[in-house]
């Protein structure tokens, strides 16, 4: 075992990661099939994907380390601004503006993660959460107050995308194109999560979540592993922000991309589905968005006929459901099932 070549541990790791990634990848493939079979439901599927990815990226940090970053949405904003910058100032790059935009967003997000993580990750629990809210609001006010990158109005660049990609290119990238990129990001997020869980990094993060002081005393460089998780999670979030807000939505406005509401939703999706698991954020997103969709499309119109105007009715109802889930199954739906399922195979599926 110790005498094995350099390749064997790598293959072992890849095999273990593939086994873990399998079930979540399968669910995404089903969603992808549904996307092509039911064109009239594309909006719903894209929204579910957004939340699954938001939860999936957040899960790598919060789910595995137990730290809650209330300023998380700032990483999505970095990605959105990165893509916006690429099209606004480099439209002559044509399609190359897309990878350049992703790269700018990812770099901005890593820099932010490095700075915030380097300082705030020394804090624990509520102190960390509060410090990160401050960062999110701070950047927003910096952009608005300093009138940077469009200030409080933000950047509108639909015209620039048309200039770069042509009319057909614009239509493609703002609909199917960005949706397919979202699917690509979903596969990437699952692969990265599975790989982390199948290496020493995942073991270190779980040890940190369970008892950080013990982890430190027993030889884990806790700062290093927390920063790895934080930065990985931040970069994935930036790719999501760049795709969903900039490529699909083609405008970036500080009031929206720094809205703490999205961070709260990321927490909901992860807590509901199961923190630290691969299927958790996906299950959380399907339930959260499926539920919102059902209430707004079927229940709200019915209530309106009765004379009750209840457009936001899903929010208070969802609050009650979330409360019930947290009290009854604090490990989330997937975690709850895994702890109670007897079959070894099913347990592996829920890993």
């Amino acid at each position, binding site marked *: *075992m*110790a005498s*094995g070549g350099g390749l*064997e*541990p*790598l293959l*072992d*790791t890849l095999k*273990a990661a593939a086994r873990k990634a399998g079930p979540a990848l399968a669910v995404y493939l089903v969603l992808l099939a549904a996307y092509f079979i039911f064109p009239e439901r594309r909006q719903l599927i894209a929204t579910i994907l957004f939340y699954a990815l938001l939860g999936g990226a957040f899960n790598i940090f919060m789910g595995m380390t137990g730290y809650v970053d209330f300023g998380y949405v700032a990483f999505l904003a970095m990605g959105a601004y990165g893509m916006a910058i690429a099209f606004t100032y480099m439209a002559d790059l044509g399609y190359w503006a897309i990878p350049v935009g992703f790269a700018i967003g990812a770099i901005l997000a890593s820099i932010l993660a490095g700075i915030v993580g380097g300082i705030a990750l020394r804090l624990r629990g509520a102190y960390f959460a509060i410090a990160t809210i401050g960062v999110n609001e701070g950047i927003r006010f910096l952009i608005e107050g300093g009138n940077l990158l469009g200030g409080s109005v933000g950047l509108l660049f639909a015209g620039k995308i048309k200039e770069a990609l042509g009319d057909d290119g614009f239509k493609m990238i703002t609909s199917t194109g960005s949706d397919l990129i979202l699917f690509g990001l979903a596969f990437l997020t699952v692969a990265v999560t599975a790989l982390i869980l*199948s*290496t*020493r990094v995942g*073991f*270190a993060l*779980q*040890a940190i*979540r*369970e*008892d950080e*002081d*013990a*982890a*430190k*005393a*027993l*030889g*884990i*460089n806790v700062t290093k592993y927390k920063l790895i998780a934080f930065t990985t999670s931040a970069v994935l979030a930036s790719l999501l922000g760049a795709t969903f807000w900039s490529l699909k939505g083609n405008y970036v406005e500080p009031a929206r991309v720094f809205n703490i509401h999205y961070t709260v939703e990321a927490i909901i999706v992860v807590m509901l589905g199961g923190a630290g698991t691969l299927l958790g954020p996906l299950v959380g997103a399907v339930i959260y968005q499926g539920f919102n969709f059902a209430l707004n499309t079927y229940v709200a119109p019915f209530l309106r006929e009765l004379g009750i105007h209840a457009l936001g009715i899903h929010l208070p109802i969802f609050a009650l459901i979330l409360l019930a889930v947290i009290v009854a199954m604090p490990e989330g739906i997937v975690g709850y099932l895994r702890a109670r399922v007897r079959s070894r195979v099913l347990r592996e599926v829920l890993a």
Partner: protein
Amino acid sequence: MAGPLLKVENVTKRFGGVVALDRVSISVDEGELVAIIGPNGSGKTTLFNVINGVYRPDEGRVYFRGVDVTDLPPYKRVEMGLARTFQIPRPWPGLTVRENVAVGAFFGRARARSVSEALEVADSVLDIVGLSGKADEVAARLTVVEKKLLELARALAMRPKLLLLDEIVAGMSPSDVEKVVDTIVRVRDEMGIAVVALVEHVIRAVRRAAERVIVLHQGRVIAEGAPDEVLSNPKVVEVYLGVTQ
């Protein structure tokens, strides 16, 4: 390697006005089994935390394997072969027993390179301490004695050169003490690991296994030597029983 495996030189550690360690010097040779005894508050755990790197001493140096490790963080010392257990067991409660031990295999001197390799090490070590039957159990569900054995297994999975055991037999029944002490002696013999054990009250265990005893009292070393000799030292008896002869 010339010289002792571990050398603590004139270490002083203060907490505010309290002097927890007062110019303590000890050394441990490779493969040696040493017990550090002393009543509650004598500075035993503080000494461990200084050796392990959780505390930096105010004065003095710590050398491990000939290297001055005084300023190195705990994880560097663990990589060099220093492992420990806690007085109040601290396994990672949500992980299984096997996963807990696998973490040790990843981050100690063993440096397992894949999960399957780490789990293999974990299984073999769980076998040594007699916890194989509980490998898939979540650590939170273990009894206190099992948690202590788990901590021992986790430390052994690191393939240490020096194992620091903090009150591992405290609160155990006499038969458990016997079993655990025998395991420790066997591990020392087979793996050539030096062991430093902190013991407050279970003097029977000290007599049974220790080759050398160091007595701490109010942050100072007051006696050192073979178990029988040290345990009959009037100064030691006084510290423990509070009587002057």
